[in-house]
């Protein structure tokens, strides 16, 4: 019981930490890292809350998290390539504050 809620709270902390970093950092690679940390936090909450059983934990949540991990990695790959395109187009790996030119 106790570890489940402990890990759920850690997940909440990771989510908030990731959200904070997502907002304050301008560099796109840091934003991608922050998004991944947020995703890890959400997964941790889901799996921790699925462990609130006597015997076997809820397998539906586990299956959803496995699907989520694969989707997260493909989204990360796409985001990284987009970041490289931004860098090629503007010379910087940051989003422009105002439209260029």
């Amino acid at each position, binding site marked *: *019981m106790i570890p489940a*809620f402990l890990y*759920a*709270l850690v997940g*909440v*902390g990771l*989510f*908030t930490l990731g*959200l*904070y970093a997502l*907002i*304050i950092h301008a*560099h796109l690679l840091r934003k991608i890292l922050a998004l991944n940390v947020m995703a890890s936090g959400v997964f941790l*909450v889901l799996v921790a*809350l*699925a462990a*609130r*059983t*006597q*015997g*076997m*934990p*809820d*397998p*539906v*949540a*586990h*299956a*959803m998290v*496995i*699907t989520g*991990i*694969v*989707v997260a*990695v*493909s*989204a990360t*790959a*796409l985001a*990284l*390539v*987009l970041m*490289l*395109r931004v860098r090629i187009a503007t*010379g*910087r*790996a*940051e989003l422009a504050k105002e439209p260029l030119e």
Partner: protein
Amino acid sequence: MKKSNNAKPITENDSRQAQFRLLLAVPLSALAVGLGYAVLSLPSQAPGLSDHVAAKLEISGVSNPVTAVLLNFRGYDTLLELGVLLLALLGVWSLGAAPKRREPSPGLVLELLSRLLVPLLILVAGYLLWVGGHAPGGAFQAGSVLATAGVLLLLAGWRLDTRFSGLPLRLALVAGLGVFLLVAVVLMLAGGHLLEYPPSFAGALILLIEAAATFSIGTALAALFLGGRPEKGSHR
């Protein structure tokens, strides 16, 4: 960290940035406290759907509940997830060609290690795929181990021959989604519902779908690592 060429002068923004961070910390800590409160106010005992899964596990064709959920009870999720993987790859490919390699020789250690590890990784992937029916493992895990083997090969400078980087590569990528859809449609035409497997040979169907999905997931993730559309003679 390297500064980009047209970075703005930071000194004047510095104090304002610190203020902004402090201001931001307030709503975010409120959010964290609220979420933590919400989590702690949940009942400490909640079986969720595990009883339902346990009750129907016998007719799913596999004895590992997570695989049963992924491939049978919630097959839609997995089907669409394979589609998402392909969409991400489509996005990456549409953003340009894969970068040209700069250094042709990967070094002795990487080359020998990849020769040793890649067959082992393929073996592990096959084992994970097979064992997924009754123990932790399954298509996603096996596929990602396969992709790791592909990434290792890419790092060692190995590229797919030009003959295979066209249609055969694309066929490999859509094999998982294709087999999944084919099984679903055939079973629907044979009189069931979409993605409803007859219990007598559900295990074999799941293994078939998982094998194709493993292959496709491995290829797609390795292709994502390449970071662009493979031109003449690239990829895994």
